[in-house]
């Protein structure tokens, strides 16, 4: 039984040989060689406390530093590695002192039931000290053995034992946190060769077991002991360190657990180092609500052959999949996706997750679906339900709404794209077009999941009688007849935004019109028409800030109207541009408004875009701040310049207060320019003096996304 204690403060006779001796390494090697050799067998360090009862085989190595490096100044003493009150070697146990280790006893109470291998000597001594001899017995003590390097690694055994409690270390290894090798540390008298630094890792901070595993990622040092504290516990139970993989025992109730893990080295020069990790114990499977189809008693009946399986769960989801079994067979592990997340500003975490499995193909009759939803801790909720596809319930014809062109509209161009909506996205749509010259064409269209239908490349000539036939999946038909005219006033759309710019709220649109005084609007925005004619007699028009509408396909509907000299004519043109894929930050929530770092996650925006930003002090009716501060784009996006909030008259405003700025950049990595940061906004200038609590919200609108930073 070892009943010693670790790392006591040490003091030896005469208060001289102390651990932090002031004159240590203050001497010189430029002295007599015999004296130098003698000094190297002595020490200015105190002994460590030894055990007095050895019940198991034990080997004691030197562990007190001999003055083998730059000589210390002052008194030197014969080294004593271990100091104990007495010595008992239990029967069957062997105590071995090796490599010149010295054990001093303050009594003559020695009981050796087992074996005592000193290798050297055991003497009663009278210590030649100023004070009375404290030691009655010295065991071991071959001074020359202080140089013993039994493993031949260049590091004296006592040094390895002292700092690391072991021998056989790699002399080229580094544990000091500075990258210096052990041999370097020894030769240069580094007294902190074992500096522990580490972090804690785990496969998942969300767990559904009470004893998760953690991995200690040790970046520096050689730990000998570890301790684990859970939440507010303070009792430290140091255990021998043997592996970087530990199991920690959380509590029995679900919730947040803060796990503190301490590591310490063998020597007092290596104090404990602590690191923490947070586990969220969650053993409750997510609650799942399916919103589409509407399920009653575990079953639903639908009239469309493709199902948009939709629902929500009460917590963030890490896994979503479904199986389907029907007359066509069985398909498993099909993908479903989270479509949106709600952020709870009180819990400061995402909560409700909405999900969708797109375009689930059904067959006539019963379709058996199994939805699996897993939360962040791995808890899985399995929902089984039947969906019956039964067209007999589809008694109403599809509802069709024309968007463009409208009945009677005068359209410019010979081939146009028509669009509208129909209520059954799984149905079909086609148009019969009878031109003014009698030519008849049949155009097949397509219907999108969002019910938008498109009839592309529809030929027009003169007065066109158009019949749109929409057929739902059950075969119900709706026919919509209308007339589209063409006239002499021509209107073209020649340029629109492209690429990722189509996801901007607005953009520049241009084209031509055949009459200079025509009023041209694009998606409701008035364009500027050039007064100078082109070579073909048309006039360019441009709308710099035309709204961009559409989902997946951007649409631009232009109208030209003339009056007077134009004969009061009108013409319509439309352009539909398919949008590519893009991504953007749709929510960013920060606990502080001052540090809004890189909410895109460090990615690059490699396209031209425009940001609109607003600061909105919501719910406040008085402010001491400027109401007309003109935000500077340079400040706003580089986050270095401070907005000048004090240049105007502090005023009292009524109602919500807003300000905004805009900045456009092209092909710049976001890391270089930074995202708009609120860190330089002096909040006191905004809110000071009104006596109200700070409850404003900064809104930053980038690419149509509302980033919020709460005070």
């Amino acid at each position, binding site marked *: 039984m070892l009943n010693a204690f670790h790392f006591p403060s040490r003091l030896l006779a005469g208060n001289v040989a102390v651990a932090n001796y002031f004159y240590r390494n203050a001497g010189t090697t430029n002295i007599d060689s015999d004296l130098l050799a003698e000094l190297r067998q002595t020490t200015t360090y105190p002994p460590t406390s030894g055990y007095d009862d050895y019940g198991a085989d034990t080997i004691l190595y030197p562990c007190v530093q001999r003055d083998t490096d730059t000589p210390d100044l002052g008194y030197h003493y014969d080294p004593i590695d271990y100091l104990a009150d007495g010595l008992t070697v239990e029967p069957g146990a062997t105590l071995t002192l090796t490599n010149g280790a010295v054990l001093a006893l303050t009594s003559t109470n020695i009981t050796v039931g087992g074996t005592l291998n000193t290798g050297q000597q055991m003497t009663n001594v009278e210590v030649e000290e100023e004070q009375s001899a404290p030691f009655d017995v010295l065991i071991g003590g071959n001074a020359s053995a202080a140089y013993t390097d039994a493993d031949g690694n260049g590091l004296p055994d006592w040094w390895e034992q002292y700092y690391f409690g072991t021998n056989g270390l790699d002399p080229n290894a580094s544990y000091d946190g500075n990258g210096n090798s052990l041999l370097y540390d020894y030769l240069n008298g580094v007294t902190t060769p074992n500096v522990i630094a580490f972090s804690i890792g785990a496969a998942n901070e969300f767990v559904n077991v009470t004893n998760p595993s953690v991995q200690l990622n040790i970046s520096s040092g050689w730990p000998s002991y570890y301790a684990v504290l859970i939440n507010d516990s303070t009792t430290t139970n140091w255990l021998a360190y043997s592996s970087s993989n530990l199991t920690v025992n959380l509590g029995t109730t679900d919730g947040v657990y803060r796990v503190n893990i301490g590591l310490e080295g063998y020597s007092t020069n290596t104090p404990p180092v602590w690191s923490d990790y947070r586990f969220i114990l969650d053993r409750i499977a997510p609650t799942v609500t399916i919103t589409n189809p509407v399920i009653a008693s575990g079953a639903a009946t639908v009239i469309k052959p493709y199902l948009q399986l939709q629902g929500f769960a009460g917590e963030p989801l*890490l896994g979503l999949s479904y199986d389907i079994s029907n007359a066509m067979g069985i398909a498993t592990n099909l993908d479903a996706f989270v*479509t*949106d997340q709600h952020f709870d500003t009180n819990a400061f975490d995402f909560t409700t997750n909405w999900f969708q499995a797109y375009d689930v193909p059904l067959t006539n009759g019963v379709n058996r679906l199994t939805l699996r939803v897993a939360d962040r801790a791995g808890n899985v909720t399995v929902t089984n339900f039947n969906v019956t596809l039964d067209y007999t319930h589809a008694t109403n014809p599809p509802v069709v709404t024309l968007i463009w062109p409208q009945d009677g509209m005068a359209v410019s161009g010979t081939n146009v794209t028509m669009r509208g909506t129909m209520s059954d996205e799984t149905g079909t749509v086609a148009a019969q077009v009878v031109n003014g010259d009698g030519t008849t064409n049949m155009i097949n269209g397509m219907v*999108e999941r969002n019910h938008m239908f498109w009839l592309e490349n529809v030929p027009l000539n003169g007065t066109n009688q158009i019949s749109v036939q929409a057929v739902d999946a059950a075969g119900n038909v709706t026919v919509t007849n209308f007339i589209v005219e063409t006239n002499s006033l021509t209107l073209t759309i020649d340029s629109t935004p492209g690429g990722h710019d189509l996801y901007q709220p607005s953009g520049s649109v241009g084209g031509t019109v055949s009459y200079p005084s025509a009023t041209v609007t694009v998606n409701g925005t008035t364009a500027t028409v050039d007064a100078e004619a082109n070579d073909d007699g048309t006039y360019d028009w441009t709308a710099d800030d035309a709204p961009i509408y559409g989902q997946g396909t951007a649409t631009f509907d232009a109208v030209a109207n003339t009056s007077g000299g134009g004969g009061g004519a009108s013409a319509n043109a439309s352009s539909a541009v398919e949008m590519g894929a893009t991504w953007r930050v749709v929510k960013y929530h920060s606990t502080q408004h001052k540090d809004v770092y890189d909410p895109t996650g460090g*990615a690059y925006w490699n396209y031209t875009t425009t940001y609109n930003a607003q600061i909105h002090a919501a719910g406040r009716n008085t402010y001491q701040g400027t109401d007309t501060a003109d935000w500077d784009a340079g400040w706003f996006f580089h986050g270095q310049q401070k907005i000048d909030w004090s240049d105007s008259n502090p005023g009292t405003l009524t109602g919500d207060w807003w300000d905004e700025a805009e900045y456009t950049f092209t092909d710049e990595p976001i890391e270089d320019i930074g995202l708009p940061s609120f860190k330089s906004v002096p909040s006191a200038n905004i809110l000071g003096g009104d006596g109200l609590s700070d409850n404003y919200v900064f809104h930053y609108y980038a690419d149509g996304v509302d980033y919020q930073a709460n005070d």
Partner: protein
Amino acid sequence: MEDAHTEVDLFTGGKAGVGRQSLFGVSCGATAYSQPPDETWEGTPENTVPYSALTVLHKTPGSDGMVWIALPDNAPMDMTVTANGFHHYNAGATPQKYTPVVTANSVPLDPDIVVDGATNFWVGQNMAFSVSGLPDYVDSVQHWTLPGNYVNESYAYSSVCTSYRKNTDLLTNLSTSCWYVDKVDAGTASIGMNLHFSNGQDVSIAALGKFDMIKPKVSWVGTQPGTIAVDINFERSTSGEPWLHFGFWLPDNPPESQDPGTKCTLDAGGLNGTLFSDLQLITSFSSEFCKANGQTTHLSGSGRDDSGLLAAYTNFYFDDPGAPLPAGYVHVTDTGSFQTFLMFKPADSSSGASIAVPLKFIAWDWSGVADDLSSGWSLTSSSKHVTISDQDTTTFPVWSNIVTQTSGYTTTTDTNCN
């Protein structure tokens, strides 16, 4: 200390035809931050998060940081990268959309409409389907689904006949080709693929495209203007001997003075007549030549008609079968039934790529009996019929034998004169 949460959404874009998907390669990465040194994140030690700890779109990236996944078009979805096991991290994902496009003879097809370049493919034209727009992948398993009626493999029907058939095994090739034998209006060619990527991930993706296949609008009408006669007024009566024959086509006569037995008139619908050809199968024929002593020689056979057949003129083809009436014989019969096919082979820039495909066929027959009476050879009885005319067909004519003037039939001799 600031804490922050971010939600990143992916907008897949495009027109969301129900069931339509595109392939996405999502490149992920994350940097984890450990204990901040003070009250800000400045100077916080950071480490790269291993890809195996990341989750995006419910998938774990491969060893290259990529997630390959098929996603529906025009759909918003959460693309927030989660670094499992890390509290503070800076993560990002960059998606790249790949829309597989079916091409037909290098023409990119549209899944919704028939594009301009896909409106003028012709039956018989070699159609090479492949898919473009995909990223690099290691290997794939795929299956094509082609609309309409087509063949995609030539084979030896017999030692004398090469024909064409559909081999569904060939539809599992990455690129596949075929020849259509019938028209297709806005047909959809589709391919379902399972792509295997270098990081070990597999993705199933489909592509489709619409196209038109044109089949010439022609007529192939059979008539039998000729008469069945016994005389020398026949092109093969080179030595003045009489023949039992069905019509004639005398080399020295102008066309308007000819009298072919069976005439197949082609209305090519304005197409160049050289794109068409004919092929005639003898369903069966039999002849017998009886001598006065009762010794009778029987000829019979079937197969492709390869003798004296059908000279091509601008808009019709003809046949005028017959049997000689040799001296020493007193009774001759000749009977035949035929199928005459109209074949179409479109011009093709790729030499040999097009094949002749059947468009129409006519079925007809004739028979005649001649007896050597005291006044000489005389037509005793005859018949002629067009049983099928202007009949659409997509079935390739096949044969195991070629009947010529001198071969391809069997000859037996007995005393059974019918």
